[in-house]
């Protein structure tokens, strides 16, 4: 479990990233961390990974304090940053060097992922494209079988087939013991994979709810004209008229549209917070 209490973090006096942030992430979920550029998604992930220290408050990951970066914590946590480093070695050498640090690393799993992504262990990182490097590292990250897996914009740089492969693989590794946190601003890439959803903006959490709860409280639909303006939380032009988000007062069943949800939350933060508090 990841527990964040009254966390404050800033980059100097000028830029506050979080103020009194409270968040609890429980095992067995694939969390989607959404937010605009600069909302603090990456900073939050870095904080959970122990790469950044808070100015106030605490963050614990399975009773570990991440900033101590103890080996027993690090071997159960893998963080895949958006921009990553790969040494100038073959994939097989990379695995031989780094895998022994992770006690639950599965070589078989890694081979399967490489096969899925059409990569060979004999390829050198220097000869791979950015997307291929990312695929190799995603394969490695998933094969470590750590309890906590943090991924910052994992689908950036992946081609369309790889994005669907990624979704398939993530769905297959999500277990009851594992916490996966994926930060993204490309919500369509991870539609139907991430649940619960966390939306960050202006140094705070605007929404933290699972898709069931969202579908219960909000209704997503396409209409030709927008009539009931008071109930509409957000609307945007679509091919068939308007896509709207309303309060689900009539208990209608609708599929959660992550992009609409995200836009609605940013457009109407107070109302959304009221609904989900």
């Amino acid at each position: 479990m990841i527990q964040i209490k009254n966390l404050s973090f800033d980059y100097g006096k000028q830029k506050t990233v979080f103020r009194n942030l409270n968040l609890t992430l429980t095992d067995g979920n694939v969390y989607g961390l959404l937010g605009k550029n600069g909302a603090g998604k990456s900073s939050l992930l870095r904080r959970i990974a122990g790469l950044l220290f808070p100015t106030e408050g605490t963050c614990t990951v399975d009773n570990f304090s991440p900033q101590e970066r103890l080996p027993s914590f690090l071997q159960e946590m893998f963080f895949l940053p958006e921009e990553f480093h790969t040494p100038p070695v073959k994939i097989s050498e990379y695995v031989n060097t780094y895998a022994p640090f992770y006690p639950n690393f599965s070589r078989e799993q890694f081979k399967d992922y490489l096969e899925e992504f059409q990569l060979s262990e004999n390829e050198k990182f220097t000869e791979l494209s950015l997307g291929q490097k990312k695929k190799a590292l995603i394969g490695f990250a998933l094969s470590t079988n750590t309890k906590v897996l943090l991924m910052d914009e994992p689908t950036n740089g992946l081609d369309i087939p790889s994005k669907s492969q990624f979704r398939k693989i993530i769905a297959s590794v999500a277990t009851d013991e594992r916490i996966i946190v994926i930060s993204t601003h490309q919500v369509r890439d991870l539609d139907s994979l991430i649940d619960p959803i966390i939306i960050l903006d202006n140094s705070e959490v605007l929404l933290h709810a699972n898709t069931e709860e969202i579908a219960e409280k909000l209704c997503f639909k396409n209409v030709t004209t927008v009539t009931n303006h008071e109930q509409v939380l957000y609307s945007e032009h679509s091919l068939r008229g308007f896509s709207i988000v309303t309060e689900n007062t009539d208990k209608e069943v609708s599929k959660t549209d992550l992009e609409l949800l995200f836009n609605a939350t940013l457009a109407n933060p107070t109302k959304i917070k009221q609904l989900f508090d």
Partner: protein
Amino acid sequence: MNNSFNYTRFSLLVKRQWVENKKLFLMASFALFGLGVIFYSLSTNWEIGQISDVTRPMFLVGGLYIAGSFFTNYLLKDFADKNASTNFLLIPASHLEKLLSVCVYSFFAFPILIFIIFFVTDYFFVHLANSVHASLVLKNHIVNDKSWQENELWYKQMFEKTDDFVYALIGSWFITQTFTMVGSIMFIRWSYIKTAFIGFAVILTLILCSNFVMGLLIGEFDRMPESSKHGFYLQVKPTRDFLEMLIRMAMKFVFTPILLLIAFLKLKEKQV
């Protein structure tokens, strides 16, 4: 689980350095050897087959200090790049293991390499210069050339040096290496230049202030101390030699552990 030190993790870190940098290490070794050959070629008077005894140790000392600090900076190059730093800091090993894995290369592997390169180059050139002289003697029918002394392997001369010289060399070299480590961890960009600049500034300050500080210290201690309640006097009069001895002792045993501790703490506090 031991979160401070585990031999398996430590050896994996040592292996990691080798796997990721072996090509560069080998290329650097050949480059150093090449530099040694050039240096010795220029230090040898080929007309009489005599190698300068003054310039020979300069190659060893220069190699140890300049190449050594470059090498240590290179070992910690990950801190010059945010992504590489992230990768390094998140390797499941303790900060102590990470620092010690750098020390293995910086304190042991590198000096062994530089000594091997130096002694091989020295051996090769000493024999070459001596044979050049021997052929000159034969060619010109010179008997008892007193102006010429046979070139001796430098390691023989090194062991004839006083203990203080060797200890001072070793002590200040360890300080340079650990100082470079601290700078490489602290600074992100231009870490070598920034560290070198601070290092030179510290040395310059010490040189400029040493006389003044010593004068002050000796001056203060020179005064007779007050009597104790038991009625006897403590007479302390440190001399310049005594203070210099203290500095030498600190150079040998104190500064390196302190700088290592600072490097360790900086590594622990490192944020990216």
